[in-house]
């Protein structure tokens, strides 16, 4: 492999070629050997995308509802996570007293609490938002606490010796440092919130995405099932990229 090929531009093109080759392999395998009740070729999935997903207002509104639940759950996770994180991380007493409790709760595999959420909050959007929030809030709390702690003592004493006031230290040292740590947590929070909302959506199979994925799977109609999943995956990637773009704007100084 020549050095020119491995340049930054080249590697992206190669990655695209690799992914395209995988799709081609999938297309050929599905067409030649696949059971049509189980697997759909990419071309068939693309074909189903128009009429079965975007053409069907019921499916479209189910996706829209999921997006809404995700947005609310993520915003709640960030707001409550930062507030709780600031409260915990502000002093070493509160950190020692409260952090173990947060870690204790974070260690529980939350999927098992899903039936409890459904039992107490019903099968509507509230349950899904709450379950997404219960996943997303922990990384925000942890990264806020870590961000408050992590500013290098050397930088702190350096700033103080140069006569920086408390406000200046917060504005120019603690805040930028916290933001960069926080964003790593926000990306994880986005993934986990999506995980929580999707788990709850799939668990409740009488409405929303859970209902449609079950109907498509049970009628052995893989093309719209793959198309639905592809749409949601595209949504997940887009949201991740959004958080990443905002992160880059806030941490340009790095």
């Amino acid at each position, binding site marked *: 492999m020549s050095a020119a090929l491995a340049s930054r531009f080249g590697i992206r093109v190669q990655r695209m070629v690799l992914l395209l080759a995988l799709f081609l392999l999938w297309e050929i395998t599905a067409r030649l050997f696949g059971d049509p009740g189980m697997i759909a070729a990419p071309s068939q999935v693309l074909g189903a995308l128009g009429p079965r997903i975007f053409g069907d207002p019921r499916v479209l509104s189910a996706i829209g509802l999921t997006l809404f639940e995700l947005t609310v759950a993520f915003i709640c996770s960030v707001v409550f996570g930062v507030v709780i994180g600031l409260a915990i991380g502000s002093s070493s007493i509160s950190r020692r007293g409260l952090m173990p409790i947060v870690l204790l709760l974070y260690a529980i595999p939350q*999927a098992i609490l899903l039936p409890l959420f459904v039992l107490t909050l019903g099968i509507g959007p509230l349950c899904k938002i709450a379950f997404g929030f219960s996943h997303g809030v922990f990384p925000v709390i942890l990264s806020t606490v870590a961000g408050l702690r992590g500013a290098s003592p050397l930088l702190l004493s350096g700033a103080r010796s140069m006569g920086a006031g408390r406000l200046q230290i917060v504005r120019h040292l603690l805040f930028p440092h916290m933001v960069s740590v926080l964003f790593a947590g926000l990306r994880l929070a986005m993934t986990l919130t999506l995980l929580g909302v999707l788990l709850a959506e799939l668990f409740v199979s009488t409405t929303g995405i859970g209902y449609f*994925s079950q109907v498509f799977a049970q009628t052995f109609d893989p093309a719209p099932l793959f198309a639905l999943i592809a749409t949601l995956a595209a949504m997940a990637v887009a949201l991740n990229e959004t958080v990443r773009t905002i992160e880059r704007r806030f941490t340009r100084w790095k």
Partner: protein
Amino acid sequence: MSARDRTPMFESKSAAMRAVQVGFLGLLLGLWFIATSVTQVHRLLLPDPPQVWHEMQRLVVTGELWRAARVTLLTVGQAYGIAVASGLLIGFCVSRSRHAVRLLEPVLSGFFAIPLTLFFPLFILFFGIGTASKLAYGALYALLPVALASIAAFARIDPLLIRAAAAMGARPAALLHRVYLPAALPGVLSGMRIALVICIAAVLGGETLVSTAGVGYAIKVAEELMEVARMYAWLIFVVLASFALNMLLSMAERWSVEP
């Protein structure tokens, strides 16, 4: 993130930390007694502690606990074994060439950012509603952190070490055994730790969604039958088990760091 942040930064005073945790659990239990005896919370939402304790004993005596736990543990064990073996293999092979790392690492980490839960209906479609679908789902979920951690660990080995060992006449087998594995071990182990937690969560989650057996399934059935006390009994067992596992993992970590 979870494993990294959980470790040295917060676990400096481990005994104090456990004391706070036990105190918190005691407080929770006290609040539970008060909530069910003083206030009028509906029994369907919150059964009283003696009822749940009775159900916990019943699950143990009838062997229901062991039957469901056996299914879940077997699935987790198999899925984790597959994930670790293939993740290590993928990681090692990819790390052999710097070009492959740059080509494939973003693809794998991109996959890791999409919750694989999305694809769960496909696992059900391909592998049915039995344990096989949970096995495949858990294995794929746990594979990614192992592969990513071992790519990073193997690719970051100091080339000087390898050159020195080769110059001293180490054969490929000895090189693998004496240089590659020990040098990559810390990174690989932290990936394996994250993978174990993810694997358990994925299998339990899959069982809760669609299954025919296992702990997650038992919790779901208890909820559907409105056997709320039994559901709480199951939840308490899982919570206790996850604390035990957490303590074991942090003990293992301390033990592996010290020597």
